């Protein structure tokens, strides 16, 4: 991709949606990462990258108000994060769904907008229309009538995306949507997501352990490793110097002829070699 396309000059994006200053994060007596300052602006497509266990999901839990920071300040849409913010659509990494779930995909998508309501909900037309529109937006209308248990990994991710999208959120938090997909399906899903970012200006944060399927459409990278957080454009963050500082050990970023990158030296033993 050309540099012009990926310029991150501030005029292209709207106001700040997420703002963090000197953020410290952890559980009781374990610090996960600290002193992170970052911001995300409206309409940005952001990858959250880093080795396993670095605290990528923890960032989402903070933004969703499921966990409090240990120190520093964090605002989402101008105020401290709170649980149940309808301006955020969320796709967690873990789902209760497996191949024994005999429930139509459309039902799940519909619950994305009606699942917090009281009553049995017998007048379903607006819900159904919203669900169909969301499935259309991710190119998965034909999956609506299928059983969740019968869908493939890629199909499921589209349905989850529709579920997150159905309430017309302003920000999407997608936790490892690509983790179980092969490269081709990953790229397909990234295209769908990128399309949403562009057509709806929905700010999107996507957790991934491999940046390569994403790299051509990213506006920003949040790289979490070794208790530190680096943020900026992919060109600025994904360099040997910047990642060596982040990991605290010498790390090399290699590029191949097709713009794929390989990060050598910084990975934990469990992570992929190109994370």
């Amino acid at each position, binding site marked *: 991709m050309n540099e012009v396309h990926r310029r991150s000059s501030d005029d292209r994006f709207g106001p700040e949606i997420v703002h963090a200053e000197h953020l410290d994060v952890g559980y009781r007596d374990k610090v996960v990462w600290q002193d992170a300052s970052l911001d995300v602006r409206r309409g940005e497509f952001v990858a959250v990258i880093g080795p396993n266990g670095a605290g990528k999901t923890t960032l989402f839990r903070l933004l969703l108000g499921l966990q409090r920071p240990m120190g520093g300040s964090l605002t989402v849409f101008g105020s401290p994060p709170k649980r*149940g913010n309808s301006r955020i659509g969320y796709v967690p990494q873990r789902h209760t769904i497996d191949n024994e779930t005999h429930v139509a995909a459309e039902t799940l998508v519909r619950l994305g907008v009606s*699942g917090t309501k009281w009553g*049995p909900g017998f007048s379903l037309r607006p819900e159904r229309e919203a669900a169909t529109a969301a499935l259309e937006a991710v190119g998965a209308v034909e999956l609506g009538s299928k059983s969740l248990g019968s869908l493939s990994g890629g199909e499921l991710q589209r349905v989850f995306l529709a579920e997150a999208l159905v309430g017309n959120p302003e920000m999407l938090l997608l936790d490892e949507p690509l983790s179980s997909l092969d490269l081709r399906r990953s790229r397909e899903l990234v295209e769908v997501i990128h399309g949403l970012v562009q057509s709806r200006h929905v700010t999107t944060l996507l957790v991934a352990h491999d940046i390569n399927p994403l790299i051509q459409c990213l506006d920003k990278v949040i790289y979490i490793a070794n208790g530190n957080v680096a943020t900026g454009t992919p060109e600025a963050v994904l360099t040997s110097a910047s990642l060596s500082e982040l990991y605290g050990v010498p790390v090399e970023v290699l590029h191949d002829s097709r713009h794929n990158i390989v990060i050598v030296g910084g990975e934990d033993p469990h992570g992929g070699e190109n994370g």
Partner: protein
Amino acid sequence: MTGGVVPFSWNLITDLRTMWEFGFMRNAFEAGTIISIVAGIIGYFVIVRRSAFATHALGHVGFSGAAAAVLVGVNPVYGLLLFTSSGAAGMALLGRRAANRDIEIGTVLAFMLGLGLLFISLYKGFATEAYSILFGEILGISDSGVIFTLEASAVVLVVIGLVYRRLLFASLDEDVAEAKGMPMLALGLTFMLLLAVAISIAVQVIGVLLIFALMVTPAAVAVRLTKRPLYAVLVSILVALVATWVGLFVQFYAQYPASFFIVSIAFAIYVAVRAGQSLSALRVRRAAQAMRNQPAVD
């Protein structure tokens, strides 16, 4: 009980009228109908939440409660309610993942059955009472029993109607529901208490040992027939109703326990649906194979 007294005729309406001249049969049909409706609905959530084993276990917990109630001379259903509710609350408070821990639950349920056995032995001459708690005694339901069943069921139905969508959401997609601000613990607790009440009243019909047949089997059939939760709930109710009604009907003429027939009919429906689905899957595969084997025309 009444087998042989009244002859069977092929006019089923007349048969039903004849049956309903007996007060205990009227009560059995009324209570059986109400309980089938409740069990059908709650059963759907049991399937969606994967709480089948917890359901089975709560039945056993209820047994010791019922036995204790008989021992101290109160209506067994109060003992059932007290013990199943406490057990349900315990499981809910430990969290949903805890409620799926088979080994811990199994350990507790074995202890509770043993406790029930102790209460039985402490109470002299009460084998029939224990028998009816274990296997159900639908023909023994009194007028006041029907009223109590109706009241308890009304509460269950109103609450489930209120929380229906929230509970479905929380059951299907836990993490998203939590992020959306759903009170997960309260929802889990509510469901488990509803389950406890449903089990307590269903025990009259089917007994603690056979609770699966009404609380799980009908819903297990339903989820295989439809993917829409609302339809699945309706099918589940229908299966429970058919099992109960046909079971009651048949036992009126055959001298075997109603529970046996109810369980058998539910089981037969389940087997028929599974077999039918395997057969149609096989047919689809065969057809696909035939297509592949056919030489391409163009």
